[in-house]
């Protein structure tokens, strides 16, 4: 299953599905990098162009290198993982710190909780986000509540669960899911989703070192397709901080993960029609950065949220309700949500299912012209 998927992904990449591009606007990227340097968030050194899986791999190497109590484990991570994120780790750090587990997600999560509860950094891999549900009880009832229920006598803050996430062009029901909303309703967890290689490396290192259990979703569509300069050194990006990656005045757009690329295209097309869009990457879904979003909507007066996950019960609903509550007098139009449909993720209908650029663009125009 996994091996086949990997081959299919390679074939898809070879066939040119998607396009090779920098996943931040050049100007925005430069501005962000400059801001990052100024704020000490990103290393000062120039980076090398790498893709998402390589950035993840770099983060894992740094994590294991800088903390002797860190471990990486899961299904097939020993040989480098089915998406190559764990390449070279076992050879460099040893099979006692980088190892395969039996094929059992609840076992992986439960083992990780116990390991983290003993003061280690447990970096667990769930091979596809679609298979995280067997571990749901361990994550929700155990990991998330471990510190609270013990009165802080114990905690499993060293736990990070990372998992491939989101659509990939041909994943069907069980290699395409975006389950973030299930976890956003769980106090005690942090949920992080990066949009690009540089973001992924900084956010993953921050997640691994955060003293709370973190679920880290990696947009697998971007593993090989997203390429940008990534500093080679160790750096962290802050959790629970959204990033305004494009300034605008007419409408605020919010997304996360690979959907940012779709939103960015929509922004460019909207600009041709004279609409100025402010684009925000939420980055951390829980606890989320309400202040940044509120400030933006207070300026623009309009909000559009977009995510691949189904619309009903999706995290966009939490954002829409919160912003409506906080910015009601400022809102000039209803909050728009452009999301996946309320169906299981379909194979041959993927392009109809996805919240595509033109779906977003149409919603932008409808909102601005409300």
């Amino acid at each position, binding site marked *: 299953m996994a091996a086949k998927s990997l081959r299919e992904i390679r074939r898809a990449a070879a066939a040119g599905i998607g396009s090779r591009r920098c996943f931040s606007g050049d100007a925005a990227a430069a501005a962000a990098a400059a801001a990052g340097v100024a704020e000490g968030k990103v290393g000062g050194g120039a980076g090398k162009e790498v893709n998402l899986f390589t950035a993840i791999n770099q983060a894992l190497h740094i994590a294991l290198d800088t903390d002797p109590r860190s471990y990486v484990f899961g299904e097939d991570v020993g040989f480098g993982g089915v998406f190559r994120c764990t390449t070279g780790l076992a050879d460099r750090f040893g099979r006692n710190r980088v190892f395969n587990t*039996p094929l059992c997600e*609840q076992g992986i999560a*439960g*083992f990780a*909780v*116990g390991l*983290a509860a003993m*003061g280690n950094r447990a970096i667990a891999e769930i091979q596809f986000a679609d298979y995280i549900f067997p571990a749901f009880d361990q994550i929700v009832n155990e990991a998330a509540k471990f510190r609270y*229920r013990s009165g802080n006598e*114990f905690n499993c803050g060293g736990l990070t669960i990372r998992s491939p996430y989101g659509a990939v062009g041909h994943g069907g029901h069980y290699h395409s899911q975006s389950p973030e909303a299930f976890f956003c309703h769980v106090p005690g967890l942090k949920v992080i989703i990066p949009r690009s290689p540089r973001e992924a490396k900084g956010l993953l290192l921050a997640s691994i070192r955060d003293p709370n259990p973190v679920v880290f979703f990696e947009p697998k569509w971007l593993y090989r397709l997203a390429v940008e300069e990534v500093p080679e050194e160790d750096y962290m990006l802050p959790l629970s901080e959204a990033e305004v990656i494009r300034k605008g005045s007419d409408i605020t757009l919010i997304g996360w993960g690979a959907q940012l690329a779709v939103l960015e295209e929509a922004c460019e097309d909207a600009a041709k029609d004279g609409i100025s869009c402010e684009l925000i990457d939420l980055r951390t879904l829980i606890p989320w950065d309400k202040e940044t979003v509120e400030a933006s909507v207070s300026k623009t007066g309009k909000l559009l949220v977009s995510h691949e996950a189904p619309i009903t019960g999706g995290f966009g609903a939490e954002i829409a309700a919160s912003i409506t509550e906080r910015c009601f007098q400022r809102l000039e139009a209803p909050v728009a949500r452009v999301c996946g449909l309320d169906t299981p993720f379909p194979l041959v209908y993927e392009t109809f299912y996805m919240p595509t650029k033109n779906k977003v663009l149409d919603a932008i125009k409808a909102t601005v012209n409300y």
Partner: protein
Amino acid sequence: MAPWRAAAMASSQLARRAARRLLSSQHRRHCAAPACPWLLGSAPPVLAPSPVAAAAAGDRRGFCSVRRFTGESNAAAAVEEAENGLVAGGDQAIDFPGGKVSFVAEMNFLPESQRDRINCYRVLDDDGRTISGSRFQEVSKELALKMYNEMATLQVMDTIFFEAQRQGRISFYLTSHGEEAINIASAAALTIDDIVLPQYREPGVLLWRGFTLQEFANQCFGNKLDYGKGRQMPIHYGSNRLNYFTVSSPIATQLPHAVGAAYSLKMDKKDACAITYFGDGGTSEGDFHAALNFAAVMEAPVIFFCRNNGWAISTPTSEQFRSDGAVIRGQAYGMRSIRVDGNDALAVYSAVHTAREMAIKEGRPILVEALTYRVGHHSTSDDSTKYRPVDEIEHWRTARDPISRYRKWVQGNGWWCDEDESELRNNVRQELLKAIQVAERMPKPPLAELFTDVYDEVPSNLREQERLLRDTIKKHPADYPADVHI
């Protein structure tokens, strides 16, 4: 399980097997082409239980020396095969990635269970006398008396707290009646460095480690001195100082945690193991399967201690599994296991003592199944006479009581007498009643603790929610209890 029930089951099983043999014999004699091919040939092989070795004092070869099935060939194996008439690569065996397996011409299905159940290790008979020929870990007078004191203390504590719940003073309670030997004797065989991951019917382990009666009472009342800050139901104890992980209600989730904790101890080269406790019902959860398999593959120094007390609330073991209890499953995962009389303090002590040594020295998991009976109701929310006969309960409460049996042995050594007994129980009772009074009058934790420890720091959304709640309390104070400091 009641002894007469076991006897009945045994006799019915024997009858079925006898019938099977008759059928097999008849077919073999009268039918040239038997209608039942699976009855052809010899009787299916009976799996002999692997004997539990005495503590192996072997040196550690490589990272750790664990006997396991491997597909690797080596010279010694080749020689052995040649001597046994098997030739590697020949048609008498298959060199399979999961190991070398010999071929056999006869069709054999493993039977669903063995002719005899796995036997049960016992040291003290029902009259508290050591069984001749039994080998067990010697216990000093001092240790023996401490064990007895704590068993009795646990019993008194349970009785009084149960009564307190009936009086409405605490919301919930769960007793360990009938399982005092399991609690105290297993704890006595451990050191304070061993990490304990309990289910919920093991407060005696915490008692043994030094948790005071006052600390137990504080948790049951959820007052401001409760380490858990009043957030969990009564009996969900925990203590970082005593290496006793905080109890949580979801069943069996702690089993894979124990494997992770044990792996950490191994990486740190600690002279310690993890031990996790669970009931017979817990063996049906998927986490049980996950944990045992991970422990074996990871070679983790963890003891899986199953309290098979015959019941999971109203569900008897016959509706829980059809295997020979939990002990038989150890081999399926590649794990050493033993069955112990859970009502025999010396047997439990000896088994856990030896299991601990093996787990740590050899870097391997061990499964212990302690057979016992849940004398009390499942909890204060349960009336167990609705689903099991009173005389069965009484039989185990009297004739098979672990405290009585152990007391006979201690008295038989001349270490205890009736006066000591009265004094002990009176002292514990008084101390406990005082602890309850203190705990009951203590205020609940302050309101701010409702919001702390969800994360390491209170995030902005929770700070806002606390502010809103305080505004509401200020406007409607009558809606809220007075014993929580705002």
